[in-house]
C-alpha cells in the first residue's frame, strides 16, 4: 500500500496493539471484582502526571465533571489530552494542566470560543496541537476497540485538518480509491459518566451514547462515575442496556449530579446560570483562578461541591427535566 501523503502532526502515542492485548490479559480483572471507590481514590490511583487522557461526552452533556474537578484538585499536570471538550477540558486548560492536545473541538458551544484554550495554546504553554475531526478521533478509538492499528476513512481528506494531523493518505489496494488512514488511539486513562453502574463496573447509559462505547474500549484504565450504583441484579434484568462491561472498568465512583452544571438526560437539566458563571470567569486568567479556588480547590470533594452549589439549585435542575 503506497503512502501518498502524511500529516505533519506528531503521533502523540504510537499504538502497540499487542502490548494492549497483554495489558488486557495481565492488568485487568477478568472476574467480578468490587471497584467502588471515591473520586479521590480513583484519580490518585489511575491518573498520573503526563498521562494520555480523554473524557466523554461533552462538558455540558453527561460529562464526568466530578472526576474532571478531582483531576484539577490533585494537580495532575503535563496531561496529554485527546478529544473534544467544553467545561471539563476548559477546567484543565484553565488550571494549566495540559501539555499536548489531540484536538477536535474545544469551545463553549453557544457561548463561542474558549478563552482558556486561546490563552494556553496562543502562549505555547500547550506545546503540541494535533488536529482531528470528531469522526476521525472516534474512529481512532474504534480502531483500538477492534484491536487493529488503523482504520481507513473518507474524512479529513484534502484539508489542513489532515495536514496537521498524524493521519496518512494511501491508495486502497482493493479499489484504488484514496483513503485516509487514522491510527489507533490507546488512552492511558478514560473518564466516562453514566446513568447507572454496579460495583463491578457494568454500566448503562440512557439516551445517546456519544462515543462511550469506543472510548471505553480504547482505554488502558477506565474510571466510571455513575449517578446511581445499582445491584448487579438490575444489570442482569436489562443486559441489553450494558454499553460498558465490567472488565473494561478499573474504578466505579458514585457521583450523583456528576455531570453538573451540565445535564444528565432524563435526570436533570443543565444549569444555564452556572455555565454562564464559568463563561464569564474564564474570560480572564484572574477570573479563572478565582473560579477554581471557589469551586475546585476550595472544596474537599464532590459532596462538598454539591453543598456549595446548594440543594435547592440541584432540585431545580432536576425539576426542569422535560421528560421523554
Amino acid at each position, binding site marked *: 500500500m503506497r503512502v501518498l501523503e502524511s500529516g505533519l502532526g506528531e503521533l502523540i502515542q504510537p499504538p502497540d496493539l499487542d502490548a494492549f492485548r497483554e495489558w488486557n490479559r495481565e492488568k485487568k480483572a477478568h472476574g467480578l471484582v468490587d471497584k467502588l471507590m471515591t473520586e479521590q481514590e480513583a484519580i490518585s490511583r489511575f491518573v498520573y502526571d503526563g498521562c494520555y487522557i480523554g473524557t466523554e*461526552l*461533552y462538558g*455540558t*452533556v*453527561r460529562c464526568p465533571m466530578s472526576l474532571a474537578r478531582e483531576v484539577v484538585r490533585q494537580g495532575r499536570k503535563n496531561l496529554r489530552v485527546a478529544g473534544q471538550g*467544553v467545561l471539563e477540558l476548559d477546567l484543565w486548560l484553565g488550571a494549566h494542566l495540559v501539555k499536548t492536545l489531540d*484536538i*477536535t*473541538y*474545544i*469551545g463553549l*458551544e*453557544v457561548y463561542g*470560543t*474558549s478563552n482558556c*484554550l*486561546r490563552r494556553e*495554546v*496562543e*502562549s*505555547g504553554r500547550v506545546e*503540541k*496541537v494535533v*488536529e*482531528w*475531526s*470528531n*469522526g*476521525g478521533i*472516534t*474512529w481512532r478509538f*474504534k480502531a483500538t476497540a477492534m484491536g487493529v492499528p488503523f482504520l481507513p*476513512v*473518507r*474524512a*479529513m*481528506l*484534502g*484539508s*489542513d*485538518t489532515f495536514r496537521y494531523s498524524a493521519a496518512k*493518505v494511501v491508495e486502497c489496494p482493493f479499489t484504488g*480509491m*484514496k*483513503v*485516509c488512514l487514522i491510527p489507533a488511539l490507546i488512552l492511558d486513562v478514560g473518564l466516562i459518566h453514566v446513568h447507572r453502574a454496579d460495583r463491578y463496573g457494568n454500566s448503562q447509559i440512557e*439516551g*445517546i*451514547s*456519544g*462515543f*462511550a*462505547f*469506543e472510548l471505553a474500549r480504547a482505554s488502558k484504565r477506565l474510571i466510571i462515575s455513575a449517578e446511581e450504583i445499582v445491584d448487579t441484579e438490575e444489570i442482569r434484568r436489562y443486559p441489553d442496556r450494558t454499553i460498558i462491561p465490567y472488565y473494561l472498568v478499573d474504578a466505579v465512583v458514585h457521583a450523583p449530579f456528576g455531570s453538573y452544571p451540565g*445535564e444528565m*438526560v432524563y435526570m436533570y*437539566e*443543565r444549569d444555564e446560570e452556572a455555565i454562564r458563571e464559568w463563561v464569564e470567569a474564564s474570560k480572564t486568567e484572574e477570573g479563572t483562578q478565582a473560579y477554581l479556588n471557589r469551586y475546585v480547590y476550595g472544596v474537599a470533594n464532590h459532596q462538598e461541591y454539591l453543598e456549595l452549589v446548594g440543594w435547592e439549585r440541584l432540585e431545580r435542575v432536576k425539576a426542569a427535566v*422535560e421528560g*421523554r
Partner: protein
Amino acid sequence: MGTPDYNPTELMICLAARQIPDGVTAFIGTGIPMLAASLAQKMHAPNLIPVFEFGGTGAILKRLPRAVGEGRTFYRGLVASGICDTMETAARGFVDYGFLGGAQIDPYGNLNSTIIGPQHHPPKVRLPGSGGANDVGSFCWRTIIIMRHDKLRFVPRVDFITTPGYLTGPGAREAAGLPPGTGPYRVVSTLALLDFDEETKWMRLLATNPGVTVEQVVENTGFELIIPDRVGQNEPPTEEELRILREEVDPERFYI
C-alpha cells in the same frame, strides 16, 4: 427605508430555513443551523429529519438545543445512537444536507474554524477546531454555509482549511478522495444568498437580502464574486416566520 423589524441573525435563520425542503435528512450543528432546522420543521418541513452528530436522529425540535449532544437533540426522536453511527450514516450517503459555519470562507467554499494567522502553532488566534465540521463537509451531499458577511470572513484564501469546500477548484475534491457529487451548495449570509458556479466551482451571487445592493455585497467580499446578469432579491422574513422564531424556536433568546 424604515427600520426593519428584524435583525440580521433572524434574517439569516429565515433564509437558511427556506433552503431546507421537507422529507430530507440534515446534519445540524450548534447555533444558527439549529434555529433554521427548528423553524423549517415548524413551517414547511414537518418531516425534516435532523441528525445530530452525537447520536440524535429524527428529533421533534420543540425546544432549542444548546449543545449537539443534549437531550433536546433526540427529544421524541427516532434514534438515540452514537457518533460513529451518525458519521457512518453520512459516509454511506444517507444525509442530504449539512449545515456549517466558520470564521472564514474562500471562493471555493473552503471553511476555517481552527486558527487565524499564518502559523499553525502557536497561532495568532486559536479557534475551537473542526469538531464534526470536517466530517459533515466531507460526507453530506449538499452543505449549506451560514455566515456573517464581511471582508474579514469572505477572504481570497482561508488561513486554514478546516473543512473542505471545492478545495482548489473543479475536480479537486474527487482528486483528494472525497466522495463524488458532494460539496458546498449554498451560502446564506447577512447580505446575500450565494451558490457555486457548476463549471468553475467559484462562488456566485444568487440573490441579495432585503435592502442590500449588489455593490454592497461586492464591497464586503474579499474576492471577486461571479455576478450573473440577473440577481434575485430575497423576501424579508414573514410575520409568521418571525413569530414562530421568537415565540417557539428561541423564546429564551439565546441567539436572536
